C-alpha cells in the first residue's frame, strides 16, 4: 500500500470521504450542458467572483478607507507596490466581466425557460445575486476617492434618495450624513468588503445547492 492510499484510507476511515467523492465525481452532467458554451456563463461569473475575492484581499492589505489617505493609498498600490497595478487592474476587469457574465447567464435562463417549476426560487435567488453584484460595483466605485468616484457616488446616492418613502432612509444609511465624506467611505468600505461578501457567499451556496438538488435544466 503506497503513501497516497494510506492517506486516503486515514481520512476515509474518519470521514467516509469515499461516498462523498464518488457522488461528486460520478454525478452525471447532461450532455447538452457539457457541449453548449452557453452553459459556461454561470461558471464564468463564479470564477470572476473567486478572482475578485483573491485580488480584493491583496488590495485591502494596502488600502486605507479615509478621505485623506484613500487616494494616496491607491496611488501607492498603482506605483510602488510590486504587481499592485496588475492586481488592481485584474480586480477592475474581473468586476466588469462578472456583471456581464451574470447578465448573460440570466438571459440564457430566461430564454430557455429554465426558471420554471421546480426552479422558481432559484431564479429569485439569482435576481438577488444580480442586485448584490451591481451593489458591489456601486460600493467599490467610491473607494479610490478620485473625481469620478466622488461625483458618480454623489449622483448615485442622490438618485437612490429620490425613491418615494424609502429613498430618504436608503440615502441616509449609505451616506451616513448630509454629504459624501469620511462616514460614507467607511460605510461603503464595510458594505464592499464585509456585508456583501458574506451575503453573496451564503446566496451562492444556496444557488448551487438548488442546482444540485434540481439538476441542470435543459434541452434546446
Amino acid at each position, binding site marked *: 500500500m503506497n503513501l497516497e492510499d494510506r492517506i486516503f484510507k486515514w481520512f476515509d476511515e474518519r470521514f467516509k470521504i469515499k*461516498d462523498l467523492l464518488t457522488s461528486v465525481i460520478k454525478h452525471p452532467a447532461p450532455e447538452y450542458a457539457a457541449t453548449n458554451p452557453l452553459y459556461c456563463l454561470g461558471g464564468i461569473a463564479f470564477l470572476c467572483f473567486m478572482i475578485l475575492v483573491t485580488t480584493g484581499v491583496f488590495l485591502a492589505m494596502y488600502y486605507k478607507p479615509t478621505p485623506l489617505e484613500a487616494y494616496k493609498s491607491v496611488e501607492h498600490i498603482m506605483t510602488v507596490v510590486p504587481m499592485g497595478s496588475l492586481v488592481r487592474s485584474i480586480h477592475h476587469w474581473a468586476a466588469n466581466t462578472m456583471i456581464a457574465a451574470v447578465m448573460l447567464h440570466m438571459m440564457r435562463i430566461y430564454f430557455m425557460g429554465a*426558471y420554471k*417549476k421546480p426552479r*422558481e426560487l432559484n431564479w429569485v435567488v439569482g435576481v438577488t445575486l444580480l442586485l448584490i453584484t451591481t451593489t458591489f460595483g456601486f460600493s467599490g466605485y467610491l473607494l479610490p476617492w*478620485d473625481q469620478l468616484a466622488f461625483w458618480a457616488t454623489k449622483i448615485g446616492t442622490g438618485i437612490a434618495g429620490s425613491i418615494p418613502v424609502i429613498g430618504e432612509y436608503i440615502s441616509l444609511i449609505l451616506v451616513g450624513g448630509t*454629504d459624501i465624506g469620511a462616514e460614507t467611505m467607511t460605510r461603503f468600505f464595510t458594505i464592499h468588503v464585509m456585508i456583501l461578501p458574506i451575503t453573496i457567499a451564503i446566496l451562492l451556496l444556496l444557488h448551487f445547492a438548488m442546482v444540485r438538488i434540481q439538476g441542470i435544466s435543459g434541452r434546446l
Partner: protein
Amino acid sequence: MSLIEIEKHEIEEERPVRIRGLPFFPHFLLREVVVMCLIAGSLILMASLYPAGLLKPADPFDTPTPIYPEWYFLYVFGFLKFWTWDIGPLPAKVIGVTLPMVLWYGLLFMVPFIDRNPSSDIRKRKVAVALGIIAILGILYFTYFSIVHH
C-alpha cells in the same frame, strides 16, 4: 448536515429518466477548467493592456464633466433623462427613478410567478420571448440615450 442529505438523496434516487449524461469528473470539469483558463488569461491580458484608471483626487467644490456611472447603471440614468412627464401628483423625477429601480427589479423577481406557461420549448413561449427581447432592447436604448443626451 443538509448537504450530506442531498448527496444521499441523489444516490438513492437512481433516475431512469436521464438519457445521456457525462460524469462530472473528468468530462464536465475538463471543459470548466479550459474555459476558466481562457477567461483568467483574457483578464490578465486586458488588465495589462488597459489598466484601471485613476483620475485627480476627489474635490467636492469642482464638478467635472462628463460624469459617467458604471456602464451597467447607464440605463437608469438614461430613463431618468428620458422620462419628463408628470403623472397626476407624481413628479417626473420620482417616476423616472422608481420605474427602472423598483418596478423593473420587482418584475424580474416575479418572472417565474407571472409566466405560468409550463413549456420550456422556445416555440411555445412566444409572449415571454417577445417580452424578453423588448426588455433587452429597452435597456440598450436607454443606455444609448444616456450617452447621447449627456
